[in-house]
């Protein structure tokens, strides 16, 4: 939770100052442009320097550096396009991996590679999926930033050819509509209709291709409100928190099923992340 200095300066609206300010202030365009346009301009202005690049750079280093008990890099990790192929890999995930006999998203595949190639224990590999500040940086988030950046501009192309992939998609579809908890919420509560917003935040309609494409291709993202790079696993985790559900486990089957549902629905759109969001 951000606690920026809200309210701390509230008592300092000196009258003398107000006069000076009124004289100095340039005419604001606020009156002419709607709030929505203003926020669109704000988002545009943020695009110029996305701190996600700091995560991408750290992730590339982590990918190439020999690490873990086996002192091996991740460069031989097969993300679905063959050992070591990073370019375009994210645009066709999640997918079925025969070696694990499981449908995996990027994060679970990374954990798999850390265990198999670097000799890291499974528990250690999945220990810190969501970072928090300098003292608790997440290697997973950095690796995801790097790998996803290598799919920028690549068209989403997720396959359901394997029966387990098709099954994951169908279960993800079901989970999307699953309502529960004290508030009866489900994903569909906020993401099942066009042109809706929560407070002032626009909500993508994830039951439609355009909505799924726009949402899925812009994660991961540098979250301005947190000063952190957040992955799609984080996005799902925090949605369920706000749905008043228990905690979605990192890399769980339900998380992969939902990712599969949304990624497949985003097929055909060019991937455009890491992005920067409010």
């Amino acid at each position, binding site marked *: 939770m951000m606690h920026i200095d809200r309210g701390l300066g509230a008592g300092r609206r000196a009258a003398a100052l107000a006069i000076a300010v009124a004289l100095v202030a340039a005419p604001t365009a606020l009156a002419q442009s709607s709030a929505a346009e203003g926020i669109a301009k704000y988002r545009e202005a943020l695009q110029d320097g996305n701190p996600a690049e700091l995560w991408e750079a750290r992730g590339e280093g982590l990918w190439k550096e020999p690490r873990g008990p086996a002192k091996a890099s991740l460069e031989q990790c097969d993300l679905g396009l063959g050992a070591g192929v990073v370019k375009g890999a994210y645009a066709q995930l999640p997918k079925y991996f025969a070696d694990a006999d499981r449908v995996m998203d990027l994060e679970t595949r990374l954990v798999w590679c850390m265990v198999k190639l670097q000799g890291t224990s499974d528990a250690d590999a999945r220990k810190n999926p969501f970072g928090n500040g300098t003292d608790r940086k997440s290697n997973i988030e950095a690796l995801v930033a790097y790998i996803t950046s290598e799919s920028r501009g690549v068209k989403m192309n997720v396959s359901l050819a394997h029966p387990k992939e098709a099954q994951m998609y169908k279960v993800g*579809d079901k989970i999307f509509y*699953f*309502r529960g908890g004290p508030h*009866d919420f489900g994903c569909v509560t906020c993401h099942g209709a066009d042109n809706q917003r929560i*407070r002032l935040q626009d909500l993508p309609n994830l039951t439609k291709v355009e909505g799924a494409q726009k949402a899925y291709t812009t994660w991961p993202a540098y979250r301005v409100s947190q000063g952190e790079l957040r992955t799609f696993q984080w996005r799902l985790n925090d949605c369920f928190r706000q749905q008043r*559900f228990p905690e*979605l486990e990192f890399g769980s089957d*339900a998380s992969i099923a939902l990712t599969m549902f949304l990624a497949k629905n985003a097929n055909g759109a060019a991937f455009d992340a890491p992005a920067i969001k409010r």
Partner: protein
Amino acid sequence: MTARRILFAALFAAILVGCATSPSDDRISVDASTMLKSSFKARGQAGLDRLDQDDTQRLCSEAAGKTPPREVAERIEKQNLATIQYPADGKLVGDWKNGEKIAQEGRGKQYSDDPAGPVGGNCYACHQLAPQEVAYGTIGPSLYRFGKLRGYGIEMQRYAYGKIFNSEAFAACSTMPRFGHNGILSEQQIKDVTALLMDPASPVNQ
């Protein structure tokens, strides 16, 4: 291998694949339910029992975001109508100022929330209410001038209170939480939110 055996094997394989690719819808629902149970962990005040659906939640999940068939909708509404408990003192309209605070408050029931901390209705997340608050959502209809447009009579008070207590009694598979039925808001809090909608002095009705 005889031609017959090859044919048989091919048929068998086709059946297997067929089973794997198109299991029945019920089967998928069971799989989803099982998968959810194994994919979440209890944290803070949010236990795994929150994944156990009641009849309404199950039927509305099956409706998959659409309006359920009429007989199902009627069943849901009837069941939920029976749960509404009106205040014993007969007073339905509380303090709109508290109601406004409850409408603004987004916390409550999340695993990240202090179980002893505030629990709100977060009404502004989905509804326009008092015109002074511009940061309102649009998942639900605008409630600006709710009482002014509909009248301040006892029947409308009962509707407003009942709708907040259990929205499913009036519109099956509504996206709105059942604040009273599910113990999110207390009786007094529901009275106060009712006042925000129904008190002629409330900013909502100006």
